[in-house]
């Protein structure tokens, strides 16, 4: 995908700490959950950036920050040059038109008391300048058709649809304001396997049709590989490795990326006995109290003293062609080796 020109989304040093308070009458901050801790990346028009990581790595908080549903502790999110993180009122509302989201759970993300027409049409009611009142019904029906739903079902309620169809309703709502960026937070993980492919294909078709840029957040590395042009791997609030999909999947350099990739089951029993598996020990540490230096060092088989003392920066390391936050970064293909 062409990555020339000004990025449509620029994220710089984004930090979100949730304070941990103690005391009932006088609240005292005793610490903070460092959910997102210094994340930077660019996204270009028409491009898909996949963000992978396990639960607790901060990817969902990142999604909320990108949607201005949380206020960052520091850092900036610039959508087409406008700082979303510090905008307020009418300006924020204007910027929002350009960045929309598709949520994970199609069962909870649609208001059960509203009809499909009301749900998909709500963006037009909030941003009344986008579509004059008389056109709205027609626009909603067009949107339903675009996402592959029957436009005649405009008066039905969400519970009359299946999970996959509901996710299409959520996508139609996200498309209504014709945004340039859509943040997809685990958009297929709640769906049945046979439905996932339908929704992924729909997202890809819409991307081509409307030149959308996606932030695609997921824990399923196979799905992310399929849809992404570039991929960022997160661990405990930080990006540990970022690069083109082939760079991350075929030439990973960070030990965590390698462990993550080797743990993904491949749907092919041939040669399963010889497949390399890096089984990580233990659980990720708490984001309230991350390890010093490199955050992955407590579970890393390469860890040395320097890892505890010095935090590895996300930069291109010798022998690699993309940034990695490891002192001992080294290309090692775990997916194809056997």
């Amino acid at each position, binding site marked *: 995908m062409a990555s020339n020109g000004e990025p449509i989304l620029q994220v710089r040093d984004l930090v979100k700490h949730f304070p941990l308070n103690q005391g009932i009458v006088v609240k005292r901050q005793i610490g903070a959950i460092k959910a997102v801790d210094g994340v930077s990346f660019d996204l270009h028009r028409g491009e898909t950036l996949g963000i992978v990581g*396990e*639960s607790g790595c901060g990817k969902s908080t990142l999604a909320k920050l990108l949607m201005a549903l949380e206020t960052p502790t520091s850092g900036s999110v610039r959508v087409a040059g406008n700082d979303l993180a510090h905008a307020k009122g009418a300006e924020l509302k204007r910027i929002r038109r350009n960045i929309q989201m598709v949520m994970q759970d199609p069962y909870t993300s649609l208001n059960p008391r509203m009809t499909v027409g009301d749900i998909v049409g709500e963006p037009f009611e909030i941003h009344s300048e986008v579509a004059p009142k008389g056109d709205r019904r027609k626009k909603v029906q067009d949107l339903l058709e675009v996402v592959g739903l029957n436009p005649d079902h405009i008066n039905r309620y969400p519970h009359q649809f*299946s999970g*996959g*169809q509901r996710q299409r309703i959520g996508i139609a709502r996200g498309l209504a304001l014709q945004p340039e960026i859509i943040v997809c937070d685990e958009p297929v993980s709640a769906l*049945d*396997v*046979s*439905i*996932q*492919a*339908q929704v*992924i*294909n729909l997202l*890809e078709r819409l991307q081509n049709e409307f030149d959308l840029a996606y932030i695609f957040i997921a*824990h399923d*590395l*196979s*799905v992310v*590989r*399929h*849809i992404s042009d570039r991929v960022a791997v997160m661990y405990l609030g930080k990006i540990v490795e970022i690069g083109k*999909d*082939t760079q991350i*999947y075929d030439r990973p350099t960070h030990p965590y990326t390698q*462990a*993550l*990739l*080797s*743990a*993904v*089951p*491949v*749907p*092919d*029993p*041939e040669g*399963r006995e010889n497949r390399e*598996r890096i*089984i*990580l020990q*233990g*659980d990720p540490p708490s984001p309230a109290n991350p390890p010093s230096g490199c955050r992955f060092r407590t579970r890393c088989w390469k860890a040395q003293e320097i890892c505890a003392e010095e935090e590895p920066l996300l930069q291109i390391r010798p022998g690699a062609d993309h940034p990695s936050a490891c002192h001992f970064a080294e290309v090692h293909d775990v*997916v*194809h080796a056997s």
Partner: protein
Amino acid sequence: MTNPAPAVDTHLLPADSGPPGTEPLLAVDNLHVEFKTRQGLVRAVNGVSYALNAGETLAVLGESGSGKSVTAQAIMGILDMPPARIPKGEIRFRGTDLLKLSESARTQIRGQQIAMVFQDALSALNPVFTVGWQIAEMFRVHRGLRKKAAYAKAIELMDRVRIPAARQRVNDYPHQFSGGMRQRIMIAMSIALDPDVLIADEPTTALDVTVQAQIMELLAELQRESNMAMILITHDLGVVADVADKIAVMYGGRIVENAPVHDVYKNPAHPYTKGLLESIPRVDQKGQELYAIKGLPPNLLDMPSGCAFHPRCPFRQDDCVTDVPPLHAISGTRSSACHYWREVLDGVER
């Protein structure tokens, strides 16, 4: 009870891949389960048969509503009846039909010989008792051990499922453990009494991939150690490919394909299996547009006539709409519930 679907003679089929003449360890035979709901009768399981031998891993693959979990619950005898009902079928364990046993006899088998691991370990564990107490209870109730001996056994088991610092953590409560550790505790409880069969119902669905890898490795190891048979219920084609010996693919309450694992992935014999395999993205290659099975999974209250998959099937012919396909034997170890399994194997779509 009249079943409107044409009777399918499952006895024509290869019941089992085990040595001929011997009864398999566990055999489900023509099992039917239905639920009475306010909307009507839901036929969740319609004539499911599978068998498994000691040391084997059978993966039961299916989407939500395919009947894979209900079958497992029927084997365990933990279905709520009513609303559930088993109008016909047999579940034979070591040759005895479990469905004919008294409740007290089944309780003896449940947990001791057939055990189960659930998807959601947090809700399967009792929040008000320590994990040590809950594991030790298995020994107190079933083995009559004293409190102290039972606790010692509990610590031993926690070690065996690799919970770090088991001795210190034995008095912790479930919520003090991470998701992966809770699943280990569930596994410890299920293997406490050395069962012959372990049923794992989506054991890793709620877990991250690195933790999933840990748990699957643990299960495989425990299985090797004790020659336990395992039924792995899942929707994840990747996990199945990693651990299963044979697969039963379920759709709409029936088994649509039954085969050794390598055969299925190399050359599926049912259009549904074939569609599933083609529709999943893979981590080791970047594909083009995904193949998508069109349409929606069937509504159990309003099942399609004939073959339940016919509305979504690229191989459909006229008789698929009218005739329920029986499980055709393809070879001694394979079967497919598709009228046109030859065409599916050859990949000739209509």
